[in-house]
């Protein structure tokens, strides 16, 4: 194996100028909310970096996270997998299949033990011994535990890996859990979202490659740089919320004027993600801009947080039926208690001694 080239060398060979490289680093710094001065540090670190080995395990997933990554505009998937990292195992992208694929993973895990970055998408089913998802005859749990041992850090990509996601939604038929429910002794970063914004995936990878450590995380293990604020706080429709101007249906004047979607169920106020600032697909739009409320996909348990069309101020469960039943029960109880009171009063009446003038005369 030839001595590994640095990123800067590789880029140079491919005709990427140093100037363009620095520009990329500056863009990266901005995206990660780092001070502009750190761009040169990033450049220095990236210029020296070898391509670290990355192993990507896919469990109970829909491949949406990988698809999202392919839509990354900066850095692009090509520059990521050909220049920045060595993607040594990835079901959807790798050439090898079957045993050859498994072998590639084994080899990479051996060669870079303790150094490789483990990316996981999809949840892990634990019910019934994990039979609900197997690869090469092995359970996801088995494979995750093995791969986690030699990982320098783990990136849980997407809400399924980060929080259990859709498979974990009630009634969780397969006992699906998140990576962090299983692996406790490795640094884990959760890049939630269904799917996550591609720039967030690549941004976190770039941060790791640059600084050799994970970025600052919130209490749910998400990078603060991207999940530090709510959609609502940065939403271009926020002024309408503050003014109390709400679209009432998906196709009224308010909807056409871009008024706030709160009443149509937007979960932006309780959702931490960067959609409102980075937007999607190269800054084209994001769900709210395209007329649909945020469904809260980067938050734990968002599938079970009530209908996507129920305003945050409304109950997430059926309260009307509960109230109806309660009213009947309350009325029943009142009738019963009323009858008891009546009996009590009748008894009192029967045993009552009439007050006579003798009673006034006292003892």
């Amino acid at each position, binding site marked *: 194996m030839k001595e590994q080239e640095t990123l800067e060398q590789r880029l140079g060979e491919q005709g990427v100028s140093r100037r363009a490289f620095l520009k990329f680093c500056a863009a990266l710094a901005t995206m990660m909310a780092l001070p502009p001065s750190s761009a040169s540090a990033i450049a220095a670190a990236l210029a020296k970096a070898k391509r670290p080995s990355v192993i990507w395990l896919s469990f109970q997933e829909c491949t949406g996270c990988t698809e999202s990554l392919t839509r990354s505009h900066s850095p692009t998937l090509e520059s990521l997998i050909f220049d920045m990292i060595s993607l040594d195992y990835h079901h959807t992208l790798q050439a090898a299949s079957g045993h050859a694929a498994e072998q590639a993973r084994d080899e990479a895990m051996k060669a870079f033990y303790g150094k490789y970055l483990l990316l996981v998408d999809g949840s892990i089913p634990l019910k019934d011994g994990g039979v609900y998802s197997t690869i090469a005859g092995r359970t996801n749990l088995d494979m995750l535990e093995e791969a986690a041992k030699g990982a320098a850090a783990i990136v849980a990509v997407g809400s399924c890996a980060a929080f259990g996601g859709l498979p974990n939604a009630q009634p969780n038929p397969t006992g699906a859990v998140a990576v962090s429910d299983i692996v406790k002794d490795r640094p884990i970063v959760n890049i939630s979202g269904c799917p996550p914004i591609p720039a967030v995936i690549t941004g976190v990878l770039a941060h790791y490659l640059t600084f050799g450590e994970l970025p600052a995380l919130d209490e749910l293990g998400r990078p603060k740089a991207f999940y530090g604020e709510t959609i609502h706080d940065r939403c271009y429709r926020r002024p309408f919320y503050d003014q109390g101007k709400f679209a009432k249906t998906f196709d009224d004047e308010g909807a056409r004027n871009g008024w706030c979607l709160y009443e149509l169920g937007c979960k932006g106020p309780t959702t931490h993600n960067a959609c409102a600032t980075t937007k999607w697909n190269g800054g084209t739009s994001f769900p709210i801009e395209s007329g649909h409320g945020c469904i809260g996909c980067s938050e734990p348990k968002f599938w079970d947080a009530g209908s996507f069309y129920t305003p945050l101020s409304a109950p997430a469960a059926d309260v009307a039926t509960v109230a109806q039943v309660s009213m009947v029960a309350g009325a029943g109880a009142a009738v019963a208690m009323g009858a008891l009171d009546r009996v*009590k*009063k009748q008894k*009192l009446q029967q045993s*009552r001694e009439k*007050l*006579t*003038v003798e009673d*006034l*005369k006292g003892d």
Partner: protein
Amino acid sequence: MSTSLQRGIASFVGQIDGPIASFFTSCVHCGLCADSCLFYTETQDPKYTPIHKLEPLRRVWQQEYTFWGKLMKKAGLSKPVTDEELAEWEPLVYDSCTLCGRCSLACPVGNDIVYMVRKMREGMVASGHAPEGLKGATQRAIELGSPMGVNINTLRAQIKHAEKETGLTVPMDVEGADYMMVLSSAEVAEYNDIIGAVTRIFHQAGVSWTIASDGFEGTNSGIQIGSSDLAAELVGRIVRAAERLKVKYVISPECGHAYTALRWEGPNLIGRPYPFKVIHIIELLDQLRSEGRLKTDSVDETRMTFHDPCQMVRRGGMVEQPRNLLHMVAPNFVEMSDPGLQNWCCGGGGGVSANERANPLRTRAFNRKKAQLDEIDATTIVSACSNCRTMLLDGLEHNHMPHEVVGLTELIAEHLADDKEGKAP
């Protein structure tokens, strides 16, 4: 627990009905009722806050009629009502409440507080916690026929006097008369001019009426002490007399609680509707006036004002009637502040006047009336309640005030149009 306490609490439990439960449920402790009670306004002592006077009853309600209260009681966590406590509350329930009902109009959540006090007194008297003065008055009423000790002989003497004065006959025990006049003890004993007055008025108006020798006393101490049993007995006497004489109407005298007892509580006390109607004397006079059967031919130029008796006005609904009559004879009539439904009590209603212990407090409470009177320069106070009249006279005397106090019926009678037949020689 003593038998009497047990009896009292059982009475509380029995008295608590939908309205009382609702009132206790609704009270938000805003304290606005304090402002409406002259015992509070004149003393500024918070214990006279009307709703506070009901605390023992409230606790019985809570312990017997609410879910949590029952639970707490079962768990032994609630404070039982004791004899000592009832003794402590006795002056609050009797001495400092005239059942005037002003608080019931003030309560923002709509609590009829006076209704509650009335009910609470049932339990108080059953448990033996009633003022001695009121007990004595009630005892006299039952045993002698009148709280003041007047009897049929006293009445006969007064009637004779009235007949002499008016030259007219006062019909006694006339079966088949339309109206049966009932009087209050005070009217028989002190304000006996009223007998002549009504005799002349009825004569002029051609009213067929009578007085029953076995049912002339309208004062009902039973209501005041809070005993339905005793009140029923007292009301029963009048009912029996009216039924014996087969009258169409019974006239309630110028006496507030007599009116309440006879008009509103009576049928409920005896447990059946009356075969006759009850009408207040003022109500009747106003009716005669509107029918043109009551004519006056002179006026009194004195500056007069009207003291609204609580039971007749606020709790009886007769606001306009006395004023209509006054306007016939008193061109210089002036209203006190807070007239009509919001008038301030004389301080002696609801049995307070019969309760010597309450005298000092009652005297203090009269300051309110004094202040009202000081605001206007009336020289004569007209009222239509013998008890009010007594209280006003008491208060005026105590405060060295010069006002005269007259009864409305007498005032009207004084100015009756010249009537050859009716006019005294």
